[in-house]
């Protein structure tokens, strides 16, 4: 059975590969984004050495790494699930002896792998050539980062699944999906690192899952998190991953009772 789940990763990967031309433009868009933020931060820093504990150089690296991480963990599972619920094809998913949500997760991972290999890695190389990005040299940091990046993917996908499942309860959850996208980008720290948020807001952020998507792993990778706290930060990601399983399980259970297959 596991081999079936792995096949879903493989097939999604191959499907993405078939449409790879769509993604070449994506690399350019991400490079432009990183460039825009790079110059913006340059202007904000002016002649100051550090802001909120970030040096200019750390900031540049943070921006580049965060955007490239986003290239990996970003997916449209929320939209896919909402569409399948709306057009009724979720019915076909339910006649198969597998867990629908796990299959979605696997498909998301296939997409993630594709994005990592054909988007994130080449994008990172281009960005490193253009901007003064300093990457850590320690292999251990890379390893920890990769594990944390995987959890970023898991948590982001969980939030997507949860958003997508709301299609069971409302007729159109387009607005919810857009709001979620903005919230994830803003609160996860892609746009502005959480250290820059006003005290009350960053205090709230401590209690939300978004920081575990970008801010925590990027902070570890750029060396802003002391080594002694890495375990704690990673633990936070794991806790959120496990914690988010509960509302997903609950929503799915409630959704099955409410399911109304459109189109007869």
């Amino acid at each position, binding site marked *: *059975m596991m*081999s*079936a789940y792995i*096949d*879903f990763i493989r*097939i999604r990967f*191959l*499907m993405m590969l*078939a449409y790879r031309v769509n993604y070449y433009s994506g690399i350019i868009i991400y490079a432009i984004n990183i460039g825009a933020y790079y110059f913006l931060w340059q202007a904000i820093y002016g002649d100051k050495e550090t802001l909120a504990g970030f040096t200019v150089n750390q900031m540049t690296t943070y921006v580049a790494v965060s955007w490239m991480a986003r290239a990996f963990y970003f997916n449209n599972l929320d939209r896919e699930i909402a569409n399948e619920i709306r057009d*009724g*094809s979720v*019915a*076909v998913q*339910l*006649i*198969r*002896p*597998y*867990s629908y949500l796990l299959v979605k997760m696997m498909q998301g991972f296939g997409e993630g792998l594709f994005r990592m290999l054909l988007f994130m890695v080449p994008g990172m190389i281009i960005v490193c050539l253009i901007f003064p990005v300093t990457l850590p040299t320690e292999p251990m940091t890379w390893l920890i980062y990769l594990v944390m990046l995987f959890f970023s993917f898991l948590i982001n996908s969980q939030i997507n699944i949860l958003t997508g499942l709301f299609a069971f309860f409302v*007729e159109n959850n387009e607005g919810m999906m857009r709001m979620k996208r903005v919230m994830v980008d803003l609160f996860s720290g892609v746009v502005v690192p959480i250290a820059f948020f006003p005290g009350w807001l960053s205090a709230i952020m401590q209690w939300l899952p978004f920081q575990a998507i970008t801010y925590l792993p990027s902070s570890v990778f750029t060396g802003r998190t002391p080594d002694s706290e890495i375990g704690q930060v990673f633990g936070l990601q794991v806790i959120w991953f496990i914690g988010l399983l509960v509302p997903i399980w609950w929503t799915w259970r409630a959704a*099955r*009772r*409410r*399911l*109304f*297959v459109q*189109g*007869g």
Partner: protein
Amino acid sequence: MLAIDVKDLRKQFNVQKNREGLSGALKDLFKREYNEVTAVKDISFQIPEGEICGYIGENGAGKSTTIKMLTGILVPTSGHIKVNGFIPYKDREKFVGGIGVVFGQRSQLWWDIGVIESFQLLRKVYRVSEQDFRKRLNELVERLQLGDLLNRPVRKLSLGQRMRCELVASLLHNPSILFLDEPTIGLDIVVKTEIRDFLMQMNKEQGTTILLTTHDLQDIEALCSRVIMLDDGRIIYDGGLDELKNRWSKGREIQFQFARHTPIEKLKQLTESLDVTWTPENDVTAKMWLPHAVNVSDALARVVGGVEIRDIKIFETNTDDIVRGIYQSGSAAVSKETSQS
């Protein structure tokens, strides 16, 4: 043993009510109103193993909803279901391993990958061994003539080709019950016949229980020994097809071809004492409709005695007409009659 056992099955949906106008929309924003719609109203039936049962009814009668409850997709509001020894919605993942489902209007193959890859994926999903899979696939491919389609992507198949592939996909794991929701919709007559023959043969050889919904009554005539007819969420008929025809057909029609021009008045005169009606078709042919109460030989004797006849054809009312009659007559009157008999 019973393949399907359904008792007092009911399904209610809450359908959102959209109020009119801007003020309505604003009200909806704060307080939603719901209409409760009962799609299936306390139905009970049992299907023994190895039976092919047709499930018919008008659009919106509740056929698809029933099928979706039987296959574990929908959770019933109340009542009991047991299919293949399982309660479908409870042990869904275990239960669906033993059934096959084809939705005529939805594809269950993966759109972007080749047919054979879809089958391979299903093999893994259903945990079929490579050996069994090969054997079964070869059989099915040969029987449904899919040979050269296997390597094409699903999106490049015609509807007929796709539907045959869907059938194979639903049968790879050798299910003991097959649910078909409008399997022949939109297909040409050749493919329809092929699929019917195939289903018939499978039922004979392997004793697969089949429950199918359809709007094409020829499917039913070709396949089903039993028909369940649904109207407005209730079962209005459950029994053999012949019985349905006998009970509901009100008469038959006889077409005469005469040797020379025969005025309709003369024919009417000949059969004056009988309760028949004549409709002229052209100068030399006319149709006579006679209810079951009138004996065919009586009617024929009178006509034959009066005019010279070249040819005679007798038409039974076809099932389409009968079923249309039942649909139109409305459920109340019908269910009363059913319960009397």
